[in-house]
């Protein structure tokens, strides 16, 4: 036995009393969480048994709903609300006997619920539109975080591909391989045009990459004239790689710088649609001139337009969930305008003999105009 002196009886009594009170309090709290009966369960109650959900079908109004999941099976379960295969909300590891609350904000529609074992039948969750509910809240700034983040990822990944393509182009030019250089130019330029809206944020890089001969005093012969248009002039018009190596090397450096800046850029949400419309407008300013005496657009003008359209498509896809909520008719018109243009611009590198120039110009103008309606519809100010 230990040698420590016995505590005084008074202290012992106090200790026992304190321990008992603490024990009872804790027991009470624990019982509350464990043993809540129906009347204390918040919101919509759903019991998961060894066989599945009870009831198997739930009907709730759109908006915030609190579910209380009761695990009446003999093993820990997880409960999920699924939209197709996507998990919208879940509670993992609900112990047997527990009542677990979960609050979800749901849009009208049909969803499924997992009910314990994966081999159990799924439950059905009907969310009905609720006319009495407040009208859909205005979009908050939070609503754009996902789209803006995804756009940044897109820009970063495209920037890396642009850098790779520019390096390939540089190698082909250094080797004096005209055919490979032309092919590499097309690959790089398509990516460059997808990024046109974002590149426009940086005037120095935009000029070095995308300026046209007409922007310079001495046009094609101006020493300041570099970038894609300078390369295209030699590769396609003059049919030579001669003297292009420094220009191609600079292009690769600029692509690298662009990628770094895009990763750090902060793009305001209103810029997404406006910037895309503006990039299309620049193309129209050069290629859509009604005075130009051309029956067909040349292959490079169509290539540029294809890149610009793909860039706009990405923007529309990112804003799609918001457009679905706020402006379904505009959303439809945007998809139609994109479809029309994408169908008219097949993935081809041959000159545009078949494409009807006037129709392509009109389709492009329609897309640019529709994009300009987007910010007012989403209540975004530039």
């Amino acid at each position, binding site marked *: 036995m230990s040698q420590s002196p016995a505590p005084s009886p008074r202290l012992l009594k106090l200790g026992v009393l304190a321990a008992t009170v603490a*024990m009872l309090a*804790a*027991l009470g*709290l*624990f019982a509350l*969480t464990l043993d809540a009966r129906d009347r204390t369960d918040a919101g919509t109650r759903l019991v998961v048994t060894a066989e599945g959900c009870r009831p198997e079908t739930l009907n709730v109004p759109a908006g915030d709903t609190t579910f209380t999941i009761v695990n009446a099976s003999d*093993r*820990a379960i997880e409960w*999920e609300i*699924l939209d197709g*295969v*996507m*998990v919208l909300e879940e509670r*993992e*590891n609900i112990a047997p006997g527990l009542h677990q609350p979960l609050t979800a904000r749901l849009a009208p529609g049909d969803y499924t619920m*997992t009910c314990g*074992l*994966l*081999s*159990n039948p799924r439950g059905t969750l009907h969310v009905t539109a609720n006319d009495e509910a407040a009208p859909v809240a205005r979009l*908050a*700034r*939070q609503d*754009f*975080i*996902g*789209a*803006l*983040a*995804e756009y*940044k*990822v897109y820009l*970063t*990944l495209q920037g890396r591909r642009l850098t790779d393509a520019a390096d390939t182009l540089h190698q082909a030019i250094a080797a004096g391989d005209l055919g490979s250089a032309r092919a590499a130019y097309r690959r790089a330029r398509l990516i460059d045009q997808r990024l046109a809206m974002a590149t426009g944020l940086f005037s120095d890089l935009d000029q070095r990459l995308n300026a046209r001969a007409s922007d310079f005093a001495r046009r094609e012969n101006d020493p300041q004239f570099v970038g894609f248009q300078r390369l295209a002039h030699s590769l396609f018009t003059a049919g030579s790689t001669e003297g292009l190596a420094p220009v191609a090397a600079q292009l690769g450096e600029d692509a690298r710088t662009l990628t770094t800046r895009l*990763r*750090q850029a*902060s793009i*305001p949400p209103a810029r997404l649609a406006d910037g895309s419309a503006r990039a299309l407008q620049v193309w129209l300013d050069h290629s859509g001139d009604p005075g130009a005496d051309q029956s067909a657009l040349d292959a490079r003008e169509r290539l540029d337009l294809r890149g610009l359209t793909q860039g706009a498509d990405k923007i529309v896809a*990112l804003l799609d*969930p918001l457009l679905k909520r706020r402006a379904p008719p505009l959303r439809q018109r945007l998809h139609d305008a994109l479809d029309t243009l994408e169908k008219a611009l097949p993935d081809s590198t041959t000159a545009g003999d078949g494409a009807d120039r006037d129709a392509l110009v009109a389709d492009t103008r329609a897309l640019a105009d529709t994009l300009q309606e987007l910010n007012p519809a989403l209540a975004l100010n530039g």
Partner: protein
Amino acid sequence: MSSRSLLIAAAAFGLMALQGPARADVEPEALVEPVAEYKLYVLDNLDAFVGHTRDFTRAIEAGELERAQSLYAPTRVYYERIEPVAELFADLDASIDAREDDYEKGVDDPDFTGFHRLEYGLFKQQTTDGLAPYARRLMSDVKDLESRVQGLTFPPAKVVGGAAALMEEVAATKVSGEEDRYSHTDLWDFQGNVDGSQKIFALFKPLIAEEDPAFVERVEDNFAAVEATLAHYRLAANDPEAGFVSYEKVSDKDRRALVGPVTVLAEDLSTLRGKLGL
């Protein structure tokens, strides 16, 4: 009822009372960059996951038992890191990572596939016989996962909530050793979950560091405590690739020592969403 669960319940109530209302002084636009960086992190890990899965499943198809066994844990670790995003796809999460307990007929259930079905064959039955179809299915599921994640706009609340979800996962199923019950490679998964959680915390930390330095310090201390315990069980102190000893060799005392900081991390990190206004 054990006195430990009482203590945990009491501690949880105490913590909740202390936390008070969540603050949201962070500009929504400030969340764009960390969410984007997190997706890039997930894409890098998925890329490695696809490569490792290819090696792992090829070893199985070639009947190389020992090689397949040695590749099991180093392959899974990538899934464990990105679980908050990967488990958004319910069908693939089930076919890649479900455990036998999720099925009525357990290991014999025809729908039981993925890592844990392969684990059962490789470590319990000690053979690659009959596993080739599961290996092929895993490979195609992992590729499917990669292409779906590439096309996914990450929901910001799920990204931020992922930091706590990963630690809850550790507390719920890793400490007990039930996740990898045949291979006893639980510490690999454990490290994967901790890595994934720390990455999310590190990305959002600059947004709260000034406002809440005490919170940041507590979280970092607890991560350090978990890392220190894990380091104790590494096969080679300076080589993370070497991995960990069998979970059977982790003492009860250390298992209990992990519960504390992991539980507090899960609690603390669950306030991150509120702090960031999500």
